């Protein structure tokens, strides 16, 4: 019998895999089509979103991780912080503090137990995952600017409401604060704030203008910007190069070489700006990764994000493609089911979407391709926002951790508030844009 005690898991795995292979529905049109859809979708992502959108976003997220001092933000969320200010800071600080989803829960319990208390902690927990740079960029790019903006502002606004509600519900309870001192990483400032701001701005503008979408009409400001988008992008790339040389100690010849190669390629292949863009990015990659100092730290932090997020995202895209198909196509799940459950903008559809979102676990950023598939299959805009708001903030695993920190009553209250407020935001958004 001992033999089986050790082996039952492998045996079960083999049996299940065998049964799946045995009954693999190859040849049925729906299955074959779903496999094709998965590959089409992942190809579309790789072609349209990785180079121009995700890679610059990784560099920005990496820069935030290395160059922005978390301690300087946390002082506004400490035990003696101004209570009104603390809500505001908690609601927006996710942009800076929560670049990686695994940092959210420790920060949340830290704010609760050592810092500004229950309200701001809940506000941070709700808005943090929704408003980090990568999430905003990808949502706006794939699901459209309205949903991207609604997601960011909805998360910030609702997080304050949820934080305040939690505070009012449990205001009578004395919180036993831990006497421990917040241990914050030391931060050394090498550059003035405006220098760092300019550095971030140059990267954000590269990201914005490189992805400038083609407008409907061929006249007006948007169209002129679209026509000049590569010139503008190059301008900001040169600015970034100058900043790196002047303030970050990049050797001038390295920046010049990169710029020269990118410019030459841009001149040789004017119809394919992606080639020049890739050359520039490669130059940046080579020269930052071989640096021993802070530029090297910047690269390795950006690379860590890419390594962690890209496989999850592309895996999520394949699964979403197989289950839901591209926009206008059908995957394994029939579109009528989706439209029946979360189509339109009814209260039931919004509540259902936010409830599913709250309990389901979304790996970092995979909520975006999943939502794209759902919207393509007939999900309403309102329920989509409800799911986007409730989804990344909560999942069954995170609820269990929150429960050990807050206790069951506060956890239930928090989860209910998240579900209700997210559904409510969905209804309002759906009424305007549905």
């Amino acid at each position, binding site marked *: 019998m001992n033999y089986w005690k050790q082996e039952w898991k492998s045996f079960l795995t083999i049996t299940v895999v065998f049964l799946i292979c045995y009954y693999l529905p190859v040849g049925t049109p729906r299955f074959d089509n779903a496999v094709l859809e998965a590959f089409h979708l992942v190809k579309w992502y790789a072609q349209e979103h990785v180079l121009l959108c995700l890679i610059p976003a990784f560099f920005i997220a990496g820069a935030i991780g290395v160059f922005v001092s*978390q301690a300087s933000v*946390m002082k506004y969320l400490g035990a003696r912080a101004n209570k009104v200010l603390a809500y505001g800071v908690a609601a927006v600080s996710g942009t800076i503090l929560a670049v*990686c989803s*695994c*940092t959210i*829960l*420790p*920060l949340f*319990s*830290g*704010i609760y*137990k*050592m*810092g500004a208390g229950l309200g701001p902690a809940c506000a941070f927990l709700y808005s943090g995952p929704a408003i980090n740079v990568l999430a905003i960029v990808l949502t706006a790019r794939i699901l459209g600017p309205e949903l991207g903006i609604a997601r960011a502002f909805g998360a910030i606004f609702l997080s304050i409401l949820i934080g305040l509600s939690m505070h009012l519900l449990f205001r009578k309870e004395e919180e036993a604060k*831990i006497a*421990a*001192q*917040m*241990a*914050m*990483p030391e931060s050394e400032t090498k550059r003035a704030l405006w220098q760092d701001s300019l550095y971030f701005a140059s990267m954000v503008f590269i990201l914005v203008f490189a992805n400038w979408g083609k407008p409907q009409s061929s006249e007006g400001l948007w169209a002129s910007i679209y026509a000049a988008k590569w010139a503008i992008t190059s301008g900001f790339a040169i600015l970034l190069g100058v900043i790196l040389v002047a303030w970050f100690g990049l050797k001038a010849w390295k920046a010049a070489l990169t710029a020269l190669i990118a410019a030459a390629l841009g001149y040789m292949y004017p119809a394919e700006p992606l080639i020049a863009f890739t050359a520039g990015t490669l130059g940046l990659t080579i020269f930052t990764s071989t640096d021993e100092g802070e530029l090297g730290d910047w690269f390795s932090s950006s690379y*860590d994000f890419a390594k*962690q997020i890209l496989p999850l995202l592309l895996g999520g895209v394949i699964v979403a493609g197989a289950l839901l198909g591209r926009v206008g196509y059908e995957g394994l799940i029939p579109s009528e089911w989706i439209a029946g459950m979360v189509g339109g903008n009814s209260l039931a559809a919004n509540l259902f979407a936010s409830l599913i979102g709250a309990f389901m676990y979304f790996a970092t950023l995979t909520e975006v391709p999943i939502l794209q598939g759902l919207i393509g299959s007939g999900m309403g805009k309102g329920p989509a926002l409800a799911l986007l708001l409730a989804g990344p903030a909560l999942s069954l695993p995170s609820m269990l*951790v929150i429960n*050990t*920190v807050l206790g069951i009553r506060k956890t239930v209250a928090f989860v209910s508030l998240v579900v209700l407020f997210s559904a409510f935001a969905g209804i309002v958004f759906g009424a305007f844009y549905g």
Partner: protein
Amino acid sequence: MKIQILGTGCPKCHKLAAEAEQAAKELGLTYELVKVTDINEIMGFGVMITPAMAVDGKVKFSGKVPGVEEIKKHLK
């Protein structure tokens, strides 16, 4: 000495644990490496930004994986 790695189990925490182990071995220390994963226990150290490393209960740094050489400095 007791080396404690504080972190809820994200990839960076594993990396830090591996680097700390390597640093301690290269220094030839007699040590015990403990991973602290319970979030309330981590809070007890005052740490909010993981991963962090504590030696004999005292937090040395938090929020980064500083590399083997720098960890050695904290272990000496």
